[in-house]
């Protein structure tokens, strides 16, 4: 099993969600986050005082999938989240040691 963390533009959230649903991914966790990579922030001015806002709002998807499906999910994520401009975000992939369904104690891939 692998865990995928995809950090994407906030306005892409619905599109990414639909793309994941379309390939049969039912479970995911979504968080509103702030951060920056190479994308520069923007300038805000309040009564003449300038501020550079470099922590930008993003949306983070977390999902755990069977090893066999990882490439397929990455393809769906990149295709749906991409605008081609700087600031589109990143995907990180981790190993998952175990998954347990709390309701009935299922373990492993059947718990996903």
């Amino acid at each position, binding site marked *: 099993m692998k865990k995928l963390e995809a950090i994407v533009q906030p306005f892409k959230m619905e599109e990414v969600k639909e793309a994941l649903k379309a390939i049969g991914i039912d479970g995911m966790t979504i968080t509103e986050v702030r951060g920056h990579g190479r994308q520069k922030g923007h300038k*805000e*001015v*309040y*009564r*003449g*005082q*300038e*501020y550079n*806002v470099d922590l930008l709002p993003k949306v983070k998807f977390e999902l755990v999938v069977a090893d066999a499906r990882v490439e397929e999910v990455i393809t769906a994520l990149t295709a749906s989240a991409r605008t081609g401009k700087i600031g589109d975000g990143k995907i990180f992939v981790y190993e998952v040691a175990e998954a347990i369904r709390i309701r009935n104690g299922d373990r492993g891939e059947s718990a996903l």
Partner: protein
Amino acid sequence: MKRLLLLGLILLPCLAFAQTPAAPLTLEQRVTAAEVAVKSAQSAGDNAWMLTSAALVLMMTGPGLALFYGGLVRRKNVLSTIMHSFVLMGVVTVLWALIGYSLAFGGGSAYIGDLRYLFLNGVGAVPNADYGATIPHQTYMVYQLMFAIITPALISGAFAERMKFSAMLIFTTIWMFLVYFPMAHMVWGKDGLLNSSLGGKFPTFDFAGGTVVHITSGVSALVCALYLKKRLGYPTEPIRPHNIVISVIGACLLWVGWFGFNAGSAVAASSLASSAFVATHFAAASAALAWMFVEWIKTGKPSTLGAISGAVAGLVAITPASGFVAPMPALLIGLCAGVVCYFMATAVKHMFGYDDALDAFGVHGAGGTLGAILTGIFATNLVNDSFKDPAGKLLPLGLIDGHGVQILYQLVGIAIAWGLAIVGSLIALKIADMIVGGVRVTKEDEQQGLDLSQHGEEGYLLEN
């Protein structure tokens, strides 16, 4: 049965006739009765407007100023900032009832009132002819109270986000005695030094409180900003307004409330009130546009915060002038205020490096001073016909009436307001400093935020 009823009907007028004797009213009696009725009708009209105005002016402090300032601070200080305004609705009211009204409006001396109205003694239904001949003295007293409430609240824009709540209460209480009561007496009180209609030596035109309210609060704000020093992290770390939406709501409530502030200062539902209402509105409009366009040119974007700040600046500047100037000069006064206050709150503040957190000095101190000077220029007896010589001829008012010396009187009023505010604020701060051991919160408390450290609560608990 029917016949009996008929008989009763015939006899009924006779019965009424028997009860009221047949003496017809003389012409004199009828005129007297008509005079009483006219007076009572005028009193009812004026009193209705003045009570409405009093309520409008209270609305300027809470929620108006509370929201305007509250939105401009960081979220950890929103309640503390709102409380700076709200608590004064309590503190100043009590002071006013016990002794404040008497010190401001009792007659006698040129500098401060006497104790004739101590505990509001003798302030009741009977009008005070000096202040408002057609409304109950009590209405005048409560109307003036609302001005006394908002003035110290305006100062809080300078010390926001770093002053101890206890120190703020002590400072404000002393400040009322040292600055507000004397200044209100000098400008509006009977026998006051600057009173233009009740025998002042230096008749200063201040229709609704340009000197009494805005210069005193604005200059005191500067003193507080310098005394308390900068907020931690200013100006290197980002200290952004946390909610400009509530600031917009606050600014709009201020704008509406200001009709009570300025038009109400006619102390009658008169044509002068209409004139002040119009001047007030026009100045706010042109000042909002002026600030917005200057900012657009300077920074490339016309901001919402800029537009509402401009409107407030225009309202401040028109305050002393509102009952003296025609609509076109009102537009011009607003325009000047928008431009001047923009540069005060941006360029001048940064040049000198003081941390006037919410620009109480830049808007109220600068705008109030500008408005007081412009009043001396644009005041005209075409608008305000209450100044006459013994022969009943209208006196010239401002420079455009050919009465240039009025500008000097305005400068005297401005100088006294500045001086009193500087000295009074320093003394009040020093005393507060000694009583609570430092007017400023500790570094840890400031970092945590004043809502938690001073009040033990948070403004936004949206997850609950």
